[in-house]
C-alpha cells in the first residue's frame, strides 16, 4: 500500500503547525477574547489577544480541532503579534478571499497561510481553516461597534451562515 498523496491539502507546513502549534500559552487579562464553534464538527476554539499601543502583543489560540483548524490557529498566533487591528482585519480579509478562491491582494503578507490554499478544494474543511479567524473577527467587530472589550460568545456564526456549506 502506498502512502496517501495530497498535493494540496495536508502540506508539510500544516503538519508542522499541527504537531507544534504556536499560541498555546494562555493570554492573561486579554483585551479581545472570543469563543467559536464549528457547527459541522463541534470543535471549539478560544482566541485571546492582548494589545499594547494599538498593536497585538500576545495571542493565544486554545481548544481542540483537526489538523487544519489547529494549523490555521497556530498561524494566526504566529502572524498577529506586532500588527494593528486594521492590519489584522486586512489579513483576515485576504485569507477569507483565498478560501473562497477569490484571489489574495498583492499587498498583504500572508506568511504560512499560503500553505492552506489547498483547503479551498475541500468545501467541508473551509470552516476548519476559518474557525479561529472568524472567531477573532466576531470579537473585533463587536469591539469596533462600541461593545468594548471582552465580548464572549459561545457560538460563532461562521461567515454569518453557520450550518453546512450551500
Amino acid at each position, binding site marked *: 500500500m502506498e502512502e496517501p498523496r495530497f498535493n494540496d491539502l495536508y502540506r508539510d507546513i500544516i503538519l508542522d503547525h499541527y504537531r507544534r502549534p504556536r499560541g498555546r500559552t494562555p493570554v492573561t487579562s486579554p483585551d479581545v477574547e472570543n469563543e467559536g*464553534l464549528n*457547527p459541522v464538527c463541534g470543535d471549539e476554539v478560544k482566541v485571546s489577544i492582548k494589545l499594547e499601543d494599538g498593536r497585538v502583543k500576545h495571542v493565544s489560540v486554545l481548544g481542540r480541532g483537526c489538523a487544519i483548524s489547529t494549523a490555521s490557529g497556530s498561524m494566526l498566533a504566529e502572524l498577529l503579534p506586532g500588527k494593528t487591528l486594521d492590519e489584522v482585519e486586512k489579513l483576515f480579509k485576504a485569507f477569507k478571499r483565498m478560501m473562497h478562491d477569490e484571489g489574495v491582494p498583492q499587498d498583504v503578507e500572508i506568511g504560512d497561510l499560503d500553505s492552506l490554499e489547498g483547503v479551498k478544494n475541500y*468545501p467541508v*474543511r473551509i470552516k476548519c481553516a476559518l474557525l479561529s479567524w472568524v472567531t477573532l473577527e466576531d470579537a473585533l467587530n463587536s469591539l469596533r461597534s462600541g461593545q468594548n472589550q471582552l465580548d464572549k460568545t459561545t*457560538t460563532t456564526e461562521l461567515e454569518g*451562515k*453557520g*450550518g*453546512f456549506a*450551500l
Partner: protein
Amino acid sequence: MSAAGTITSGPPAQARKLDVARIRGDFPILKRQVHGKRLVYLDNAATTQKPECMIEALGSFYRTSNANIHRGIHKLAEEATGLYEATRKVVARFLGGADPHGVIFTRNCTEAINLVAYAWGRHNIKPGDEVLLTEMEHHSNLVPWIILAREKGAVLKHIPLQENGTLRLDDLDKLVTPRTKLVSCMMVSNALGTINPVGEIAAMARRVGAKVLLDGAQALPHLPVDVKKLDFDFLAFSAHKMLGPTGVGVLHARPELLRSMEPFLGGGEMIREVRHDSATWNEVPHKFEAGTPNIADVAAFSSSIEYLEAIGMPQVREHELSLCRYAMAELRKIPSIRILGPEDPNLRSGVVSFVDQDLHPHDLSQILDQHGVAIRAGHHCAQLVMRFFKTVATARASFYIYNDRDDIDVLVESLRLARKYFGF
C-alpha cells in the same frame, strides 16, 4: 394571462413551437401500450410522466455517488452533497433568481403547506384571527388550516367561487379584515384550470399586513413564474407535477422569514447543538430539513427543471394554451358534455374538467382506459368546488408538453364511443 397579475405574462407571438414528436421520444413510458392501444396520458395535473434524463440521473446517483450528505468527509459524501445542493440552486434559478437559502425541500407540496401551518401558523395565529382561503382550494391548502383553526380558535374565510369558475373578488375588501393574518391561495386550480389573480389578492392582503401563501402546485409546471415579480411570503409546489420524481416538494420563502420561524420537524441535520433538554437550530434552509433528506430524488430533480428550461416555460404555456383551446372546441361539439371553469382558454391552464349528463365520470374514465386514454375522474381533492357545482365528481383531462391534438382527438372520439356503448 393578464388575470394572473404578477405571474409573468405569456410568450412573445413568435415563440418557437414545441417539437412534440421529439419530446415524446424522451419519455419512455409513452412508448407503452395500454389494453393494446397507444397510451394517451391526460392525467398530468395528478402527476406528470418523467423524461429519460431524470430517470437516468436517479439511477446514476445510486450507481455512482450515493452517500448520506453534509457531514461526511469522503468522496461519495462530497459528490452526493454537491448534487443535492446543486438542485437547490437550480430551483432558485428556475424561480427567477431566488435565494437558494430560501429553498426548502419537503416531501411534496402538501408537506410544504403544513410546514407553514405548523412552524409559522401555530406561533402566529391567535384565537379570533382570520385565515382567508378560497372556495377553490385543493384539500392540501384547506385541511392544514382547518386543523390549525380548530386548535387555535381561529376563523376560516373563503373567497367565493362563481358560476364561471373564477373567484368572486367583489367583496374582497370585506373578506380581508384587520384580523386577517394569512391569505393562502392557489395560483392555478387543479379542478377547474382557472388561473387566479394572485397579484390582486396579495395586494389586498398587504393592506392589512397579512402574510401570503401561494400554492403553486399547478402553476410552476405550466406557467413562467418569476418570484421577483410575484408578491408572496410562502410558495409551495411539488416536483412530481413538473417532470420530477415523487417524494420532493419545495417551500420557498425569504431566508429572514424562515429564520424568524420556529422549527417544524426535529432531528438530525436541523440542529446546531443538542443538550439533554435543549437544542439550538442550524441555519436555514437546513433548520427545516430534519433527518436524511430524499437525497437521490432531489439530486435528480435538477434534470427535470433543466429539461423544462431547455424547452422554455413561455413555450410550455403557449403549447398548453393551444391544446386547451382545441380541446374545449372539440368537447363542445358533444352536446351532453358541460365544461366547468372559465370559457376563455386564456384564463386557464391546460386543464379541462367536464361532466357528461348521462355518464358518471368514473364510468367514463373506465371506458377511456380501454382506449388507452388516461384521464382523472373524481373530486380532484376539491370537494368545495364539487359541492359548488352540485356534483361529486368530474372527468378531467390535463395536458403537458408531450400531448398534441391527436391525443385530444382520441379523447373526444373515445367519449363518443363511450356514450354509444352505454346506449346514449
